[in-house]
């Protein structure tokens, strides 16, 4: 299963990819912001993990744009972000995010959220 990992921090992308490898996934495509992610997204991507605060296009803007595409309407989107104010979380949900992981996360929490969304990714 191919994951699209979107974060402007190369360190965070590496940590997320490493966590996914430990869970058992080994196909990834990475992007540094929402704009780049939209360019790299295609039907082969089955799961999206995105940060919120990024240059050019934020994670919520990216998710909204993705949901407007016929091939991105149903793909599971997991937001991994430092933002944890209730209003922000609601905004993310309204943008089309399927679940939410607060940084700093533990591998267990990330796995739990991915596992919960895997049926939708199949």
């Amino acid at each position: 299963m191919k994951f699209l990992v979107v974060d402007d921090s190369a360190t965070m992308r590496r940590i997320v990819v490493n966590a996914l490898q430990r869970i058992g996934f080994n196909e990834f495509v990475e992007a540094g912001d929402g704009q780049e992610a939209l360019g790299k997204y295609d039907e082969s991507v089955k799961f999206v993990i995105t940060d919120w605060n990024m240059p050019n296009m934020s994670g919520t803007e990216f998710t909204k744009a993705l949901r407007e595409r016929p091939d991105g309407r149903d793909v599971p989107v997991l937001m991994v972000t430092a933002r944890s104010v209730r209003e922000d979380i609601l905004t993310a949900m309204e943008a089309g995010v399927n679940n939410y992981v607060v940084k700093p996360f533990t591998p267990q929490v990330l796995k739990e959220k991915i596992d919960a969304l895997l049926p939708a990714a199949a």
Partner: protein
Amino acid sequence: MTSDRAHALYYDSAATLRLVDTQLDDLRDGDADGLGVADAAPAPVAPTPRATISLAELPFLLERANTEINGLLARLRESRGALQATAVDKLTHTQAKLREVTDATEVAATDILDACDRASAKLDELDALDGAVDTERARSAQLRLELRDEIFTMMAALQFQDLTTQMLSHATAVLTEVEERLQEVAKIFDGSAFADAATPATKVPTVRGDLTFDPNATVLHADRRQAVADEVFTTGRTTAAA
């Protein structure tokens, strides 16, 4: 203080000073008319016609000038107070964030070092098992698994780098904004002092603009914050389903 407000204050101050200047000119003209005020100042560049002022009007004029000056000072005090209050609030928050950065760095470094110690101990055990009999292979495999867990713990601890970067970006943005505000106030008193102020080589995001960082980014209480997210998504789904 916004730029508009600074300019409004500047024009207000200039208008007040012009009014005071006019009143003083009136006083001087009164002297030129032989009303007894000694040592008249040089004539203004573009004098405006004025009515003759009697000495009887002098207290009134002085009182009016005094009122205008006091009004100007009150506006300046008000601006200074607003600036100070904002600056103090933001700087206090920034100082707290910088303290958190220091603490986070220390905690993460300790976590990484602890994980390194545990990983080293397991490597020692693996060395001892090298060439061991088949019955110890299972233990060796278990140790390798645990070693990978430790190494991943080290990697996960490095999330502090992203979070502290966001905190420092916020601190930089706050300091930039405070600097801009101080420049606005300084320009009111001496516009030439900042006329040629160098602009930053790189654009620093402001706390008012589009952010590439979370002003509230923190490494603290992740469990509690994750629980809020879980509750929002659970409630949201329930609401949507109902």
